[in-house]
């Protein structure tokens, strides 16, 4: 691949801001934190039989927010029993229209308490309040609304088949969209008549625990949803428990493969939503200013902690220089800092562990010969932070072009023809998403047809909707969440059942 020439125009100097936006912190007094949380089993908060607790911190300040229970084998077993009991004795027999009403109540409660959830989400996970308020919470409520409506309509979703719930679903979710992932898992499971044991991520348990409070308030029958907090070990206990019929996992490809191996021969139903290394492809006829926004959003939304992040920019050579210049200019206006500030665009990295991983991969990029660019911005003293980063002079073989970084780091490569773009985009074991930027409709459809990706965004990026199926090809996992397709993984057909 040709070496990229050094830019003629100098990178824009860091200007002293003429207009200093004053801090605009969202108030946190709406959140009432307990010192210590138990496990949510059988409709009650109970102390862990394991006797163990761990801390959850605010990654922007490193302050401890609360202590959270660590579920051990006995706890997980109790949770699964509670779920089984609830399924047998109540939930399975309940008419769909009644299940729907419970799920509608949860949706409504998320709307009523949206601000509280959003602030808590930001405190526990580090994402900007702007995002938790405007993206995570509305989508979470919408998911419950959407799936509530399916609960009593399943016979229309599967022509000529008689759907039955699978029984107990064991679900493990990641730390990048905690409440949203909980909604993505719980809503379809309940709508289809299953009961749930959910394990939130180790670094972000708090909004799931608040959801447990909501579940109590809407009077969902005890045991229909159980929430067991813990780390990897707890997750493993949940997915391998013999009385769990269905496993749903969202997380890293590595752990996904481990789960796949652990479940081999058990007959458990499984869906996996794993990592990605999506190509965001910009053609020379793209509407460039909007493409810039799409590229920026694709990699810096949620600090790049997004499985479907557009982490590889493939740009058609003729438009490489103008696009790069615009990207660098745009990076200057990204505001990195306190996630609770309403003007923050890029928040904190979720954990020290994740920060170290990002740093390691970025160092490899420099070491392997790619050229790094970062805007100047002041980062807070405490907490975990990484500046938005661009790499040019990247080849496909560089680690930063192959491995999922899961951080605000964009690797930029070039291409010449549509066919070459297809080839490069698909040249990865991953296949979760792709972006296509061109003003030509037929090219969008031609490219989309050829992308080995479960989600293709054309002239947009990071768009989600409860009615739109989401999931990966290849090592990005299998199964779909959202839409009519999202019901299928939770059902058995024609004389099945548990």
């Amino acid at each position, binding site marked *: 691949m040709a070496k990229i020439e050094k830019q003629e125009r100098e990178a824009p100097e860091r200007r002293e801001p003429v207009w200093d936006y004053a801090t605009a912190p969202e108030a946190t007094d709406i959140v009432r934190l307990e010192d210590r949380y138990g496990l949510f089993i059988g409709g009650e908060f109970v102390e862990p039989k394991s006797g163990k607790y761990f801390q959850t911190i605010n990654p922007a300040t490193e302050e401890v927010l609360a202590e959270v229970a660590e579920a051990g084998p006995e706890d997980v077993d109790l949770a699964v029993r509670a779920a089984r009991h609830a399924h047998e004795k109540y939930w399975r027999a309940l008419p769909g229209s009644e299940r729907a*009403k419970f799920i509608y109540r949860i949706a409504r409660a998320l709307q009523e308490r949206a601000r509280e959830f959003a602030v808590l989400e930001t405190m526990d996970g580090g994402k900007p309040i702007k995002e938790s308020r405007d993206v995570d919470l509305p989508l979470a409520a919408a998911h419950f609304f959407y799936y509530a*409506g399916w609960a009593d*309509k399943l016979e*229309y*979703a599967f022509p000529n088949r008689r759907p039955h719930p699978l029984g107990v679903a064991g679900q493990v979710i990641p730390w990048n969209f905690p409440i949203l992932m909980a909604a993505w898992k719980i809503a379809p499971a309940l709508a289809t008549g299953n009961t749930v044991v959910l394990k939130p991520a180790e670094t972000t348990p708090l909004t799931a625990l608040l959801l447990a409070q909501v579940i109590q308030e809407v009077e969902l029958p005890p045991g229909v949803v159980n929430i067991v907090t813990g780390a990897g070990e707890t997750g493993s206990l949940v997915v391998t428990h013999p009385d769990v019929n269905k496993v749903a996992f969202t997380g890293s490809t590595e752990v996904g493969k481990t789960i796949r191996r652990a479940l081999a021969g058990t007959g458990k139903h499984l869906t996996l939503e794993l990592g990605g290394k999506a190509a965001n492809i910009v053609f020379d006829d793209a509407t460039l200013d909007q493409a810039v926004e799409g590229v920026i959003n694709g990699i810096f939304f949620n600090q790049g902690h997004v499985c479907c992040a557009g982490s590889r920019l493939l740009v058609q050579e003729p438009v490489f220089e103008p696009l790069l210049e615009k990207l660098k200019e745009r990076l200057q206006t990204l505001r990195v800092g306190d996630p609770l500030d309403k003007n923050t665009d890029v928040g904190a990295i979720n954990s020290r562990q994740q920060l170290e991983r990002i740093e390691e991969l970025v160092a490899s990029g420099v070491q392997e010969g790619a050229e790094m660019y970062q805007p100047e911005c002041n980062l807070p003293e405490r907490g975990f932070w990484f500046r938005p980063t661009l790499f040019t002079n990247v080849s496909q073989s560089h680690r930063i072009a192959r491995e999922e970084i899961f951080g605000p780091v964009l690797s930029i490569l070039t291409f010449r023809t549509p066919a070459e773009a297809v080839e490069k985009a698909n040249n990865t074991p991953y296949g979760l998403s792709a972006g296509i930027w061109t003003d030509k409709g037929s090219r969008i*459809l*031609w490219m989309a*047809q050829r992308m080995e990706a479960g989600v293709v965004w054309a002239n947009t990026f990071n768009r989600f909707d*409860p009615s739109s199926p989401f999931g990966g090809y290849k090592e990005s996992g299998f199964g779909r969440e959202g839409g009519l397709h999202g019901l299928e993984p939770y059902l058995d057909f024609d004389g099945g059942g548990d």
Partner: protein
Amino acid sequence: MPVRRTAKLFIGGEFPRSESGRSYEVHAPDGRLLAWAARGSRKDLRDAVRAARTAQAEWGARTASNRGQILYRVAELMEGRRGQFEQELADAGAADPARGVSAAIDRWVWYAGWADKVHQVLGATNPVAGPYFNFTIPEPTGVVGIVAPQDQALLGLVSRLAPAVVSGNAAVVLASEKAPLPAVTLTEVLATSDVPGGVINVLTGFTGELVPWLAGHMDVNAIDITGVPEDMRADVEAQSAENVKRVVRGSDADVFSPAAQSPYQVTALMEFKTVWHPMGA
């Protein structure tokens, strides 16, 4: 001494009296006078259709999810008026008013949930034999005239009205002549909901007088003849030929049974648009 209620028309989100100044007596089966209801005229009908047409573009352009949530909230408000509905159904001679109200609310919720799903069940992408992306999307037909069933004054009405508006249509409803009051209470629920004015319009009055005007109106896209007296049906179908109105009728199944509700009732009042686009680099 209680303050007696006035039953007025519901047009464009407001409650006008009939421009004709007429009203009629509503009696219980045992002959008791229950209320005076407005006796809608052809001009009221004309105004209602105009209001519906004006409101339909915006209602149809909203996201499906938004419509679903708005309609779901209507059910929440109906729940709040349960007592009043039950009383009115009892006054109309219903055998089991409580059952009727519960069924009506459940049915409304059921249809609200279809707003953002009917496209997935009955829309399609079509694998045509050529390098074209081809998809079929259902869209609301526009303004729907609904002649509500004479009996089952609430559940029967809901069974025709909910599937019509959930997809983005606007409706002009001719309420049951002999038992209009539950429909009037429903309009009061709608007026306090987030349903924009003009999306649902309800006229009380004499069915026989108003039906021909509805059937012949050139700016109504479809007509639901469920409540049209049998001896008028042929005429209505003939009249509808003038602007090729779609003619639909509710199922004959027991209105309480699941057979009386179906997503096909929704799509019967939708148009299917198929779009082609080449796929080429």
